[in-house]
């Protein structure tokens, strides 16, 4: 979707904040929401594309409020928890669990945490599909404006670039958010700054965007 999250090229956000700030957490509650989010993700109720789509659906004023990444995590997790009937709105409002839990969901334990960290969750999928493009091919990013989740940022749509890397076949986010892998060839596409931003682009600027085959046409 053409949401507030799609920020590449926007003006007005000012200086980079807190360049040498405390990391990775600046407040204790951020540690908690990070860990809780990770643990709940382990229940397998949604995939990463669904969780990103939910983040993108945050109302713009809430998304930008305080420019606080972990606060956005909190808001998203509250919404997902309600959507997936893990908690009720009343329970959230009162801060007290009052209803019985959903059956059949098992909390992940520390051993499972270690496995999740060590193994990850590769997006690559086996495929017999032939890649449509190869390194060096000139391509154009399509002008698409789906209302659902996509990973083609607005700032390169309609722009011409060159295939820099062929990255294999991966789960296609636009479909995965709807529950299907629909694996597609993935390419790193090199765009010249002038082609993206116009003649006043910073000199010597190049931008590489990872684009799935359905985002591209031959140029």
């Amino acid at each position, binding site marked *: 979707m053409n949401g507030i*999250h*799609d*920020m*590449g*090229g*926007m003006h007005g*956000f000012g200086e*980079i*904040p*807190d360049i040498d*700030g*405390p*990391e*990775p957490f*600046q*407040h*204790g*509650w951020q*540690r*908690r*929401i*990070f*860990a*809780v989010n990770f*643990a709940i993700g382990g229940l397998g109720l949604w995939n990463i594309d669904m969780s*990103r789509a939910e*983040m993108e659906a945050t109302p713009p004023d809430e998304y930008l409020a305080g*420019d*606080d*990444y972990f606060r956005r995590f*909190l808001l998203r997790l*509250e919404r997902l928890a309600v959507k997936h009937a893990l*908690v009720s709105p009343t329970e*959230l409002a009162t*801060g007290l*669990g009052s209803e019985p839990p*959903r059956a059949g969901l098992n*909390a*992940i*334990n*520390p051993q499972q*945490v270690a496995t999740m*960290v*060590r*193994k*990850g969750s590769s*997006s690559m999928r086996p495929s017999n599909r032939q890649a449509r493009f190869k390194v060096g091919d000139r391509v154009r990013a399509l002008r698409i404006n789906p209302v659902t989740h996509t990973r*083609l*940022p607005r*700032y390169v749509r309609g722009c011409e670039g060159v295939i820099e890397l062929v990255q294999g076949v*991966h789960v296609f986010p636009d479909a995965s958010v709807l529950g299907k892998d629909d694996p597609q060839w993935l390419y790193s596409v090199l765009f010249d700054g002038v082609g993206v931003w116009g003649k006043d682009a*910073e000199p*010597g*600027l*190049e*931008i*590489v965007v*990872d*684009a*799935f085959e359905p985002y591209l046409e031959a140029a």
Partner: protein
Amino acid sequence: MSEHDHHHHDHDHDDDHSHLSETELRVRALESILVGKGYVDPEALEAILQTYEEKVGPRNGARVVARAWSDPQFMEWLQRDSTAAIASMDYTGRQGEHIVALFNTPEVHNVVVCTLCSCYPWPVLGLPPAWYKSAAYRSRIVIEPRKVLAEFGLTLPDETKVRVWDSTSEMRYIVIPMRPAGTERWSVEQLEELVIRDSMIGVRLANSPEATESTITNWSTSNAR
């Protein structure tokens, strides 16, 4: 100043009930309800935090870079198949199943962002710094990188191209900074100390030997840098 230790204290200001923010209250409520219903195991939360506060951090990436600088065979492997080379050092898994190493040269300076969210190569760099996830960085680095780099104290020659990698897929990127001059006989351990986190994102260069003394003071108190 490092505030790295403050969240290990039991009684930092966050616990002063007289000004617990609304956000903190909601986080506590949510955690309490989810734990109470059996969806979340508190020991799992501790394991998660221990992993990303103590075990996984940018020292991993520094070891990759220092080894590449020291060992031509490893450098060649890193160029040919970054994922495998980095995985051979046990740096793989969540948010780093597929890692591409980007080699800075005098001709091309690489810098990494995720304009759409916060994608970052966790196995080699740990969790991203807050600024990496800020609206300012996400919006500006793809359109005015030199101005952004200047805020980090980095000015590149006009002849050097700036190549910004937007992590829009599950591919993850680590910048391999150029080896600083004057380090020809340095050991791998000494070289690791030069490789600051920001040099592997691409907003700063690796430290030079002259900067080493202040660097050692900083990172010995914080794995996060």
